[in-house]
């Protein structure tokens, strides 16, 4: 039985005394684009919610793009909401699979990786994501001639 995360989050914050439930993004119409190039010619980027610059305070963290060559060995996950009782994030591949994707490029099945990867914060405000973070990442993907994106929220 899949975990009902929306209900569980609601129950948790009600137990913390919050009066108003969080209103999750709710969309019926779903945009959809078919890939324009075959996989072995396509350029792919990675988008993560794991934090690259934990020194920036959480309330003012916004989307950023970073060179893949500057990818740290570990990204910061301490302030994100995940199951810290059951598991851990000591293995970067379990949330940022750069080795697996690089091996797909090396074996010729994937065209290439884009020069930059992208951080998008887990934002309480949907307005920030919609009007600031997502448009910035879109622009950077277009600058990098990205065809495909894999998004991996923690």
């Amino acid at each position: 039985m899949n975990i009902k995360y929306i209900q569980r989050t609601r129950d948790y914050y009600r137990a913390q005394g919050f009066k108003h439930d969080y209103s999750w993004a709710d969309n019926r119409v779903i945009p959809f684009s078919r890939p324009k190039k075959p996989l072995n010619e396509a350029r792919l980027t990675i988008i993560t919610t794991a934090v690259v610059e934990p020194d920036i305070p959480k309330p003012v963290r916004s989307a950023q793009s970073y060179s893949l060559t500057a990818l740290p060995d570990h990204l910061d996950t301490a302030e994100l909401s995940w199951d810290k009782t059951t598991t851990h994030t000591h293995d970067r591949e379990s949330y940022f699979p750069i080795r697996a994707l690089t091996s797909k490029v090396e074996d010729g099945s994937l065209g290439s990786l884009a020069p930059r990867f992208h951080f998008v914060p887990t934002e309480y405000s949907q307005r920030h994501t919609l009007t600031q973070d997502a448009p910035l990442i879109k622009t950077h993907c277009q600058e990098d001639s990205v065809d495909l994106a894999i998004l991996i929220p923690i």
Partner: protein
Amino acid sequence: MTARTLEDAGISTVVLGSALDILEKAGTPRIVFNDLPLGNPVGKPFDRAMQMRSIEAALRLLYSAEVGGTVETLPHRWSQQEDWRRNFLEVRPEHQAQLLSLGEENRKQRLENKRLGLFRP
């Protein structure tokens, strides 16, 4: 929401994640669902075979999906036991006082952040 913006711009996306209800409600174009504890959406830590299967499934779904909202559920299991499912944000009656004080702290911190100008425009 970021995936939706990219799709609108002609970039095909796939989300590899474990909170299926949240992703579906948001209207996510393509989802590869790993029914694992939140924290390791690609696969169990150091399980390279599982992680590779997840990546291959994501790359396949980018091309096989015919419509927005397509979900592929992977057969991966965290363990033989299912008791891990209780752990995330579990609310037990004996935690009530502790949770309320955590909430109080949280609300104070938010006010303090505002006072310090720590918020996004």
